[in-house]
């Protein structure tokens, strides 16, 4: 393996060259996503945004990785992974017993759709190319699982499939591996050469197949080496399905289901390729014609605390392979508290400023005296005391707001107990956020918050953590402290958020509109969060629409009649596909069901927002549409909004 200075930059599975390195970096927590009973039975769509971890999951079940895992099964770092894979039945005491065949479906297929041919002929070409490639990928996998040389040892493979409903044109069964290879390579070669030629296409001579018969050749009983079956289970993992045309994708899924595939099939695709309707439906149970899709982000959304720990374990593995004597775990790279004289002074000054503000606003009143005394007596670190003062200021603002609403002018002193009752961790979080913004104190630092900033996406986490690690690594060269200060962590997160924000128009379809829409959500959330009463503490980081409105956004007829909503639907779908928004479906609130649209947490950094999910303020569709073209501006009458 070529040496890497910063292993966090190896963000894709395919950039990790060797199986050993892949296993060193693979964190088994993601395997919990698979149902132990039927993970390699039936047809399972597997979906995520780019960087969600699909390709790593697919690679794990390839023969060479399973062999390497079996060989290293006694190593402490790999024992948990080996155990999980054994429980899933992909490996036993003798080695791998699952033939995992990865097939990339990205290339050439879409071009078939553009040929000047009738649909039936195009489908036949599509199936013939797919059959050929399934066969070729299977042959390579079959050799690898028995650790034979491909294609040299193909003679030792025999292929028999008496139960196959139809024969593959041009192929006589039974046959050996070499004959099958020659047949498949010829089919593929004919089609690809014709497609890539500068000359005119002579489609009449090209091989056409009626359906996906190659699935039968993957059956464990169809493939034997030296007369012995090679595995007990097979799994076809079709990757990059999003690169097929919509028709081809539909045809493929329908065909695999109709054929009652004799082997397990994973259909892996990225969210970016889903239609607006599919994207808005993502995460729901509606209208399935196959097993429930495995949606990686949706899974982590349910178990976000587990995800955050998972991120840190991934980071620890990366730090370990960097082989720096001063950096052993990710925790050694980042400071998690605001200690030291600089911050003591900053918090002490903040306490004084806030206390003065409270006194000046309460001149002539004894109402809050008990509260003020209570906070004065409170013990703790300078940071805790500053948070207490800022919480008190929020509570006083709330009390005054209630008083104005009720038109009561009572000035009766309120007891300290009442303050204690109204204080909770959410209020303290809001106070911490307010302090950070008002007194230029770091907020986005520490391993908990950095892992939250991943927004349920591993690639995003590796990007953020990689920036931190790069600086820690540089510090080791200078013999300086390797633990990155909170201020610097905060700055790095702000820089990362800014760069990400600025790249949206380039990276995302309808990027300018998407960014204006997100800006509307972000500016609105910031205004709402930093109101004097800290409503919805610790603050909101998203908006919501009714599920009934979502249904309208998925209804083509409705959208034809309401083009402004069609535009909004397109923009929301694009933002969801790129993980700029994270959706929560069927969220119950106010006796209604809502689709909550949370900002990606890195965008929360851009807008100085808290990092929680689920705190939102709903807005009507009309307002969301307005944000696409016009910046959010705080309403003159604040109450009108609430």
């Amino acid at each position, binding site marked *: 393996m*070529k*040496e*890497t*200075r*910063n292993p966090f*930059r*190896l*963000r*894709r599975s*395919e*950039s990790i*060259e060797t199986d050993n390195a892949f296993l060193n970096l693979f964190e088994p927590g993601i395997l919990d996503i698979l149902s132990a009973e039927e993970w390699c039975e039936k047809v399972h769509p597997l979906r995520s945004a780019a960087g969600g971890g699909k390709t790593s999951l697919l690679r794990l079940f390839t023969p060479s990785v399973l062999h390497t895992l079996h060989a290293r099964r006694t190593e402490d770092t790999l024992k948990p992974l080996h155990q999980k894979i054994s429980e899933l039945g992909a490996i036993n005491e003798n080695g791998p017993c699952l033939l995992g065949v990865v*097939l990339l479906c*990205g*290339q*050439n297929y*879409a*071009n078939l*759709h*553009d040929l000047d041919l009738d649909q039936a002929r195009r489908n036949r070409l599509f199936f013939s190319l797919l059959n*050929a*490639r399934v066969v*070729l*990928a299977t042959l*390579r996998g079959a050799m690898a699982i028995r650790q034979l040389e*491909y294609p040299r040892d193909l003679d030792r493979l025999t292929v028999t499939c008496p139960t196959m409903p139809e024969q593959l044109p041009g192929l006589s069964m039974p046959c050996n591996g070499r004959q099958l*290879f020659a047949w*498949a*390579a010829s089919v*593929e*070669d004919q089609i*690809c050469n014709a*497609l*890539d*030629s*500068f*000359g*005119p296409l002579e489609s009449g001579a090209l091989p056409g197949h009626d359906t996906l018969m190659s699935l039968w050749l993957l059956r464990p009983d169809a493939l034997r080496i030296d007369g012995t079956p090679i595995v007990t289970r097979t799994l076809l993992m079709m990757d990059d399905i*999003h*690169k097929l*045309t*919509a*028709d081809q994708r539909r045809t493929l899924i329908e065909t695999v289901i109709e054929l009652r595939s004799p082997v397990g099939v994973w259909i892996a695709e*990225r969210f*970016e*390729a889903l239609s607006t309707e599919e994207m808005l439906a993502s995460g729901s149970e509606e209208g399935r014609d196959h097993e429930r899709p495995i949606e990686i982000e949706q899974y982590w959304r349910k178990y976000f605390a587990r995800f955050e720990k998972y991120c840190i374990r991934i980071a620890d593995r990366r730090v370990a392979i960097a082989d720096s004597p001063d950096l052993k775990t990710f925790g050694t790279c980042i400071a998690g508290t605001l200690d030291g004289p600089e911050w003591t002074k900053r918090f002490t000054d903040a306490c004084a400023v806030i206390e003065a503000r409270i006194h000046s606003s309460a001149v002539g009143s004894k109402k809050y005296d008990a509260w003020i005394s209570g906070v004065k007596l409170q013990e703790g670190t300078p940071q805790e005391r500053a948070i207490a003062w800022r919480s008190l200021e929020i509570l006083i603002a709330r009390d005054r707001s209630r008083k104005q609403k009720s038109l009561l002018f009572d000035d009766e002193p309120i007891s300290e107990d009442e303050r204690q009752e109204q204080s909770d961790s959410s209020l303290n979080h809001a106070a911490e956020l307010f302090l950070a913004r008002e007194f230029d104190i770091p907020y986005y630092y520490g391993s908990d918050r950095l892992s939250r900033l991943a927004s349920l996406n591993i690639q995003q986490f590796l990007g953020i953590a*990689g920036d931190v690690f790069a600086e820690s690594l540089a510090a080791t060269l200078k013999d300086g402290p390797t633990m990155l200060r909170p201020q610097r962590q905060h700055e790095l997160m702000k820089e990362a958020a800014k760069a990400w924000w600025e*790249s949206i*128009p*380039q*990276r*995302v*379809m*309808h*990027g*300018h509109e998407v960014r204006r829409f997100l800006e509307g959500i972000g500016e609105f959330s910031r205004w709402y969060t930093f109101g004097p009463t800290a409503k919805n503490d610790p603050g909101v980081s998203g908006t919501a629409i009714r599920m009934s409105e979502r249904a309208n956004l998925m209804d083509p007829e409705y959208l034809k009649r309401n083009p402004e909503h069609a535009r909004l639907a397109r923009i929301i779908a694009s933002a969801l596909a790129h993980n700029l928004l994270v959706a929560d479906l069927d969220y119950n609130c106010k006796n209604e069901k809502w689709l909550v649209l949370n900002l990606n947490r890195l965008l929360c950094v851009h807008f100085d927002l808290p990092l929680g999910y689920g705190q939102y303020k709903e807005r009507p569709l009309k307002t969301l549409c307005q944000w696409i073209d016009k910046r959010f501006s705080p309403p003159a009458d604040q109450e009108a909004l609430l």
Partner: protein
Amino acid sequence: MTKLIPRWRDYVLLRGAMLSDFWTDHCRSCQEPALFVLAKSFDPRSCLGIETLVNSAAARRADARVLLFPNEQSLMSADLLKRAEDNFKRIHETIGPRGTVTPHALQFFSAEGRRVASQNAARVFTKSDELSQYSDVIVDISGMPRSIFFPLVGSLLFLLDRDSAIHTNLFVVVSEDAALDANIGHDQIEEFADFLPTFRGGFALEATAELPKVWIPILGESRLVQLDRIYDVVKPDEVCPILPSPARNPRRGDNLVREYHDFLFDTLRVDPRDFIYAAEQNPFEVYRQIHRAVLQYNDSLKSLGGCKVALSALSSKLMSMGALLAAYELKSSDMDVGVAHIECNGYGMTDAKTDSELFGMWLAGTCYERENAA
């Protein structure tokens, strides 16, 4: 090492006043008309080629085939659309009574929204008869995206190579202005990169999927998203980036390395010894460097069955032509060389002032016939 004498080992490359003088001289002996192939484009450079050459041989008959991109219009602002209209008028005025201007509508997107421009560009000319009535075909790529001119020029070379009875000369001209290139923004980059049709280079073949893959991207500024997405489709085992050197700005290569430092060294883990240097203003030098690198890699990896090479042109159009020539020639030699590319869906131009220089490349025709005969 595999012996394959580069087709364009000796070449004709002219620029500025030398190009105009050459054209005046060349046209003196031409009886047949010339055909200009260019795009209706917002790019202020898109008419400079036709204007310069037509005015250098004012008496010569000339036709123009203008590629129109009807559904690309949705990607452009009103200002850019107006600029494209103005440029189209300039083409008509330039040709004037010398010949005819034939618009050729080229669909950018299929009915379901996929890009099909490249496939259509490869079919702008399908028969050699379309070329034989002209003694010179001049393709001005200044206003064409790479996804158009790669298959277009490739198909023209193919038609001329296939029919040895035709003696039509093929020229490519391009107005080069690095400052203007920097002023044209690329937004809404396609989600996924792909290989250009006719330049797939065997990357799609499952039968040879185990062959090592080499990626040779020609680096240009502000293309990180494109590089990242192309990397995703190529999935290379080796990467040999091409840096411009010599270049007008001698630090340009260093600046590019600095710009892509993390991507090159941490993500791709490029070995610094694998950088290839090629002259910024000589596409034939770029071609020669790529040609040599591909042959060397195939030779080194012979025991593994050879390799597949993906080229990506992310720099100027002038340098991109080097990639096109290498890909075309090596494809003709049955080598697995493809062109991996990604387009954007939105353009913006902050400043339309241009101080460009016209370059002309003579790619096929009589000068090479004499060379071959000799």
